[in-house]
């Protein structure tokens, strides 16, 4: 079949396209990812026992806000990256903002705390569980998001993979925050921030294999 015949064949009975398909798939995947991840975490790890106290609630809100900020910003980028050529429209530093804010808050907190407390603030009892949990939990939202992004046609697979990993890491951190009692700002900046970055790197590595079309 030569090229003219191919063009003729492809042009017979052309169906109208669903322009909202990509946006809808990604939005649906994000909602599904959040629900599944919250469900899995609350069944598997359980919600922290003290979440009704004002003290715990305040920290919980802070951690959830950090995670939601990451998820929202990264999702907007992911939606652009999913389309061919979208990588040329995402050259800004917004995705770093939540991390920068968390680090700033951590530095300020440490500066106002006596040095003898630093160790306890950074290496809370839960740091190892946090390091393991966030990347493991992130596998579920990552799989759902990959399914949605594959409906589009990303042309920069490394960056699209990275942002898929970043959203998944953010969703995972959001769910894990409900369980985790490590509340200090340095703890969140290092262990939450670090593991979410790890998810991003994993996404960048897996992107070219999983998102090819």
């Amino acid at each position, binding site marked *: 079949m030569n*090229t003219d015949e191919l063009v003729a064949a492809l*042009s017979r009975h052309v169906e*109208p396209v669903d322009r909202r398909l990509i946006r809808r798939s990604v939005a649906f995947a994000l909602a599904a990812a959040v629900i599944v991840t919250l469900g899995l975490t609350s069944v598997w790890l359980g919600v922290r026992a003290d979440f009704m106290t004002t003290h715990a609630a305040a920290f919980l809100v802070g951690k959830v806000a950090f995670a939601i900020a990451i998820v929202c910003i990264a999702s907007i980028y992911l939606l652009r990256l999913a389309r061919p*050529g979208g990588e040329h429209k995402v050259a800004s530093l917004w995705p770093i903002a939540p991390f920068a804010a968390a680090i700033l808050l951590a530095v300020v907190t440490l500066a106002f705390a006596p040095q003898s407390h630093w160790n306890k603030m950074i290496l809370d009892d839960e740091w190892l569980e946090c390091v393991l949990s966030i990347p493991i939990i992130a596998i579920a939202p990552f799989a759902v998001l990959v399914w949605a992004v594959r409906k589009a046609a990303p*042309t920069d697979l490394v960056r699209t993979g990275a942002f898929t990993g970043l959203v998944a890491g953010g969703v995972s951190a959001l769910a894990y925050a409900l369980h985790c009692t490590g509340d200090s700002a340095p703890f969140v900046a290092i262990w939450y921030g670090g593991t979410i970055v790890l998810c991003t790197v994993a996404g960048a590595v897996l992107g070219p294999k999983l998102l090819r079309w």
Partner: protein
Amino acid sequence: MSTAESELRGLMLASHSGDSASHRMLLERLSGHLRAYYKRKLASFAKGATEAEDLVQEALLAIHIHRHSYDPAEPLTPWVYAIARYKLIDFLRRSKTSRADVPIDEADDITANDDHFAAENSYDIRRLLGKLPKNMQCAIGAVKLEGLSVAEAAQKCRLSEPAIKVSIHRGLKALANLIANEVKA
């Protein structure tokens, strides 16, 4: 905005709403641009007109299958260029040529030149279609090759109309993968 951009974009918008004639004109015009682009690019890798024609067909198929990923709020040329370049890099990776040498040029380059001297390509799409599952073969054969309507194809293939549309879409995607495997070998 260049005239090529506004004309091609107009054709794509019409194609999005299901206008077959505009879709055909769009693919015809893009094939001229794609051919000139691939011939120019492949010249630096000592590949000839046959490989360029393979890539023209791969890119046209990709543009057809993924046309829903074009956002009407954006210009069309960068979208076409991104797909053309993606397919070029994919091809070079499959044929084990270093991709480091693909220079990044302006998206407008894609519509700068035209080339309507189609060469023979290296694979036979009809033969590859024969490797697809029966439903996809029947749906694509009836609608795209024989030109039957979706309703007629549904009767012929004993499938529902939505199943015909899904079979065509999935079949073309599977065909694109078969072509990619073929061109590697």
